[in-house]
């Protein structure tokens, strides 16, 4: 397991959001994190990233405990966070957005350079000098993933990347993520779009009210109508 989340509980102030939640991701896997609005998907990813540190439990990345470490330390260990609201820097150009995030890869793998992410997200190259704030929703989604990639992470936390994208763009995003997967990227993918998530994932977790309700292969979840209707409303 490259990522091992063991029984974490996370709070916003007094209100407890995650209840002893555990999950794991193997190297090279794409794992879906599914659940309704407010189930706790974002909170789980923020807990891993150190943005909302868990109050109890542990998070191990490549065998090392990272819970309680500040986000920049966790990022430098090789985890990238792609937030659901994209969080592009509006006053920076596309290239400057990427430049801020650039880090050297730690292992000997082929580095993700600005040129290489432009080859994957071909539209971004044309927008090189445009301000982040002037991009469309779809362009911002590409940029936020590209920005995570140039940090050369070993694990990407993607929070609902398909949200708000037109069907055609969702399809393209799927192709791009599949390409990343084929190159060996490890991804924990939070989604509400079940079909999109299962088309990419090896395994899936379904969470509800901050607890894991299902864990298994994507194929098993396809068949498990009970889980799907109870926790995903499908």
């Amino acid at each position, binding site marked *: 397991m490259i990522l091992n989340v063991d029984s974490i509980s996370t709070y916003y102030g007094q209100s407890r959001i995650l209840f002893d939640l555990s999950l794991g991701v193997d190297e090279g896997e794409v794992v879906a994190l599914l659940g309704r609005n407010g189930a706790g998907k974002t909170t789980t990813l923020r807990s891993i*990233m150190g*943005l909302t540190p868990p109050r109890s439990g542990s998070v191990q990345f490549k065998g090392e405990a990272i819970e309680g470490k*500040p*986000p*920049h330390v966790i*990022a*430098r260990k090789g985890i*990238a*966070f792609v*937030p659901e609201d994209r*969080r592009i*820097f*509006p*006053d*920076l150009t596309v290239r*400057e*957005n990427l*430049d*801020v*995030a650039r*880090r050297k890869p730690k292992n000997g793998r082929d580095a993700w350079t600005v040129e290489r992410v432009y080859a994957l997200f071909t539209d971004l190259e044309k927008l090189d000098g445009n301000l982040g704030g002037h991009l469309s929703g779809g362009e911002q989604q590409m940029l936020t993933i590209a*920005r995570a990639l140039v*940090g050369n992470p070993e694990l990407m936390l993607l929070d609902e990347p398909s949200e708000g994208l037109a069907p055609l763009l969702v399809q393209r995003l799927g192709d791009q993520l599949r390409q990343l997967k084929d190159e060996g990227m490890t991804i924990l993918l939070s989604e509400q779009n079940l079909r999109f998530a299962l088309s990419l994932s090896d395994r899936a977790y379904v969470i509800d009210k901050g607890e894991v309700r299902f864990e298994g292969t994507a194929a098993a979840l396809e068949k498990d109508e009970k889980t799907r209707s109870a926790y995903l409303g499908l």
Partner: protein
Amino acid sequence: MIASLSTFGDCVTDGACLVNTGLSGLSVAMVLFLIASGLTLIFGVLRIVNFAHGTLYMLGAFAAYWVVSRMGGTDGNFWIALAVAPLVVAGIGGLVEVLLLRRIYGRPQYLQFLLTFGLILLAADVVRLTFGTEFKLISGPGPLSGSVSILGRPFPEYNLFLIGLAIAVAVGLWLMLQRTRLGRTIRAAASDREMTSALGVNVGLLFTVVFMLGAGLGGLGGALDAGRPVTIHPIMDVERVLQSFIVVVIGGLGSVGGALLGALIIAQVSAFGILLLPQFSAAFAFVIMAAVLLVRPWGLFGRPLEE
């Protein structure tokens, strides 16, 4: 009143007086810009209104005085003081940020006011205890203490140097913010601290660096004024810092370009206003500020706050 109207009229119709007054205004504008750019940079990135910014300016002047007097007070030592003073003030700023300001980021705003206001009183007392209460002057900038003739009127060489230095600082600051990775990272952190940290940037350290830079700019303003020379005392900052706050408000909180434009406007209005209505000249800056805020409440280069 009638006399001053004619003074003003005489000056704007006399090329030499016009240029001389304009250049004097420019030299004041440049000091205002240095102070205001530090203030606006700190606000733009750290979201802290540093009411103690004038204190940093005052400390810059005292640091220059201290260096000059330690070195025997001879001419020419001022240049060493001018290089050392901003560094000393940046160092003090670093300590203040690490030990105090860090504790109040994201906390209620009255804490900023209490803390920075407390620092003003504390620093003034420490300076009084260390240097005494009498006014001080430092011996001038040696080789540049003469005047040059511009259109037949004398103009201090030092003020020309000051204008040149401030322009160089403005250009350097612009290049740093726009063309370096550090500058891009500072701009990113200014707009989204949390996301910047999630990209691997040690934002806490970055804030310290930005505060030191802002403090150093305020200190440079103080040291430059000390060489003009102005008298150095613990509340020497009152007028300059008040004007700097007006400059920042006019230019737009957080905008370095706005600080430059605001400083040029305020200093020129003061330089010519004093010819027109000497007894009311201090009010001009406020009138301009009110006028700008009526049209653009967020300042010339600022933008409406989202939160």
